[in-house]
């Protein structure tokens, strides 16, 4: 039993810290730390800085331009990024479609897409969910019919994150409607600039344009954009699922946000004293802090079991459930901490259109939108109820 990083890991952490210290632009960092909204340019800018260092493909093998890091090294990288407040590296290309291309794509696809993903030359989005297919993903209806050298795609995807920025979408499409639902699905890469694609915004509770509906009306997709074999898409989708959930617990971010919460609760007054001295509120914060401590150790336990395997096993479902509970409690307590100052809503401030929020309390301004936005976490990426189904079946054997 040894909970310490090895000397090698610590040296690696120093290298990461030095890189972040020298390369994270201060304006981007301030946006992240102050809970402001990030633009496409912000995210691409950070991605290209990391790409220049060669550290985008943290879960990728070296042969494809990845770092070849161990699970512990990846964890350190993610923790350090979260601690200082970097913009995210979007997962759709790097962590989602890329592993599928590596495992099931042909040589031409690997040569074309993988370097472009590393360098963020294409913005990717995910075409999985449909209006009638949420947790029951395999019931999806978007049709792709083969006509000569093309597929003709018709249907609708929804909840498509940042599709308004996207150059490419990876889609699950139905290529055979006459077999068991899992057996008639194919995995197709589609250029978002193809005629017949319409993107319509869905505005979330915080009035942010984060997700979209994507409509396909006789969209002509070259047959060489099919990954692997026709009607094997469900297998590839399940493979992807195992890669989607690395760092799902986001402990590093939770630790940073806990410090933010405490700072806010030190500034807020109750009965003439800092709110953090109020025993009732302090008990809630302490309980959350302890949950984060426990989750950090649980994450490390799962990581150390992972060893050389690619991606965590069904234990990732536990990390998703507990991680999102922590994230949601954090935002809940932030809103509670600022009290009535949660009410004023100033989206222009969040977009960076003016320097200070309407009330002047810039810490408080983003918190209610943050809280409302984060209700998504227990729903996306396989709802927490679906995660419990996975735990039930894969770990408990019920």
């Amino acid at each position, binding site marked *: *039993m040894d909970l310490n990083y090895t000397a090698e890991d610590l040296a690696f952490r120093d290298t990461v810290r030095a890189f972040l210290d020298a390369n994270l632009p201060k304006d981007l960092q301030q946006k992240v730390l102050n809970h402001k909204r990030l633009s496409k340019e912000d995210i691409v800018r950070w991605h290209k800085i990391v790409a220049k260092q060669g550290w985008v493909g943290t879960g990728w093998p070296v042969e494809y331009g990845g770092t070849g890091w161990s699970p512990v090294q990846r964890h350190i990288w993610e923790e350090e990024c979260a601690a200082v407040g970097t913009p995210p590296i979007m997962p759709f290309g790097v962590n989602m479609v890329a592993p599928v291309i590596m495992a099931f794509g042909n040589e031409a696809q690997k040569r074309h897409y993988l370097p472009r993903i590393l360098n963020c030359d294409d913005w990717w989005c995910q075409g999985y969910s449909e209006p009638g297919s949420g947790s029951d993903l395999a019931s999806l209806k978007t049709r792709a019919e083969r006509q000569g050298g093309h597929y003709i795609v018709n249907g609708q995807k929804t909840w498509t994150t940042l599709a308004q920025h996207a150059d490419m979408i990876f889609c699950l499409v139905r290529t055979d409607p006459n077999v068991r639902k899992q057996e008639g699905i194919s995995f197709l890469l589609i250029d978002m600039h193809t005629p017949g694609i319409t993107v319509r915004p869905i505005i979330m509770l915080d009035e942010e344009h984060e997700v979209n509906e994507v409509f396909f009306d006789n969209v002509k997709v070259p047959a060489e954009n099919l990954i692997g074999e026709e009607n094997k898409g469900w297998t590839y989708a399940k493979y992807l699922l195992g890669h989607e959930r690395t760092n799902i617990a986001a402990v590093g971010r939770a630790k940073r946000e806990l410090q933010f919460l*405490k700072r806010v609760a030190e500034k807020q007054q109750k009965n003439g004293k800092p709110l953090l001295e109020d025993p009732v509120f302090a008990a809630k914060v302490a309980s959350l802090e302890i*949950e984060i*401590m426990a989750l950090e150790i*649980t994450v490390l336990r799962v990581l150390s079991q992972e060893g050389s395997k690619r991606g965590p096993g069904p234990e990732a479902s*536990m990390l998703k459930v507990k991680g999102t509970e922590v994230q949601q409690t954090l935002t809940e307590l932030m809103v509670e901490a600022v009290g009535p100052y949660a009410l004023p809503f100033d989206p222009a401030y969040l977009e960076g259109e003016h320097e200070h929020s309407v009330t002047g309390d810039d810490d408080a301004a983003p918190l209610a939108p943050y809280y409302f936005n984060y209700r998504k976490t227990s729903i996306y990426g396989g709802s927490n109820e679906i995660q*419990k189904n996975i735990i039930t079946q894969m770990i408990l054997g019920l």
Partner: protein
Amino acid sequence: MDFNYTPEQQQFRDALRRFIDKDYTFEQRNRIIHSEQGISDQAWATLVELGMTALPVPEEQGGFNGSAVDMLVVMQELGRGLLVEPYFATVLGAQFLKLAGSRETLLEQVAAGDLKLAAALGEPQSRHDLSDIATTARKDGDGYVINGAKAVVVHGGQADKLIVSARSAGSQRGTEGVSLFLVDADSTGVTRRDYRTIDGQRAADIRFENVRVPASALLGQEGSGWDILDAAVDYGAALLCAEAVGAMDALNAATLEYLKTRQQFGVPIGKFQALQHRMADMFMQAEQARSMATLAAVKVSSQDARERRRIVSAAKVRVGQALKYVGQQAVQLHGGMGVTNELPAAHHFKRLTMIELTLGDTDHHLARFVAQPDFRKAA
């Protein structure tokens, strides 16, 4: 980073498990609980034979110098096996002796299994605040005279010697002026009322009336016993967290088995999603508790007392939250059978519930966590 147990740790874990499965079954334990003595000399002899009493004792005193992580392994097994012997009480007592120093002969006796100890700390008015001490120690010639009452001293009736906290100075509530004494349980003026506890163990209310002890009975320095007490109790709390994890594992395993075998509406009840999700939640609670019990075992011996307090209290909180959920839901999922006294599950539930109330409950440790300087400093 390494979360594995060493081959030695796995060996004594397996040895303990074999002993419990074969010679400390549920039925045998029931006979022990309802016996006159309430503990088993035979079981004690086996624990000694397996090296369990020697494990926490330093090598110089004939022990194995086992770490808190070694004890984490042991206590998980004892929690699983619902052991009711005065083992934890003795290990906790030995921790006081180790921290106080210069009690080599007694530690040798602990290692050999010839000495049983108990820590008499709580009082009728103190609840979980062990610095609330009305018991007094008055200097008298070259010794001390102790007067007072200690409440619910676990295995106090079975101990040969008692570690007693008493006030030699200061006001009743406070960490200054606390002295610790090692008192023979059969000293003149000591009366013990021994009784059963609801989780199958024994405890005693102990009165000290003009109990005269020599100066050599003092553990550590007069008036500055608090740091030893605080550290020893943290060690005990960390061990209880480990015991609770073992009990939760047993409870979850039993509940899972019940969900797979109990049939209603023509199917095993584990096919019902309401119960599946409950079981998934119980599993996650136990894993979070395991993480904190592990962290506490690793950090309880830290030289940094602030870190130790912070992490042990965090562990006792998280384990306390988990054991309530797991215990209550295990009973619920067992249905009518869960509320009978016939299944081990009910006894795990009772033991878990009492662990939460021993050496500081969840609220006590949550408040202690908040009171640590790091809670505010971090902000």
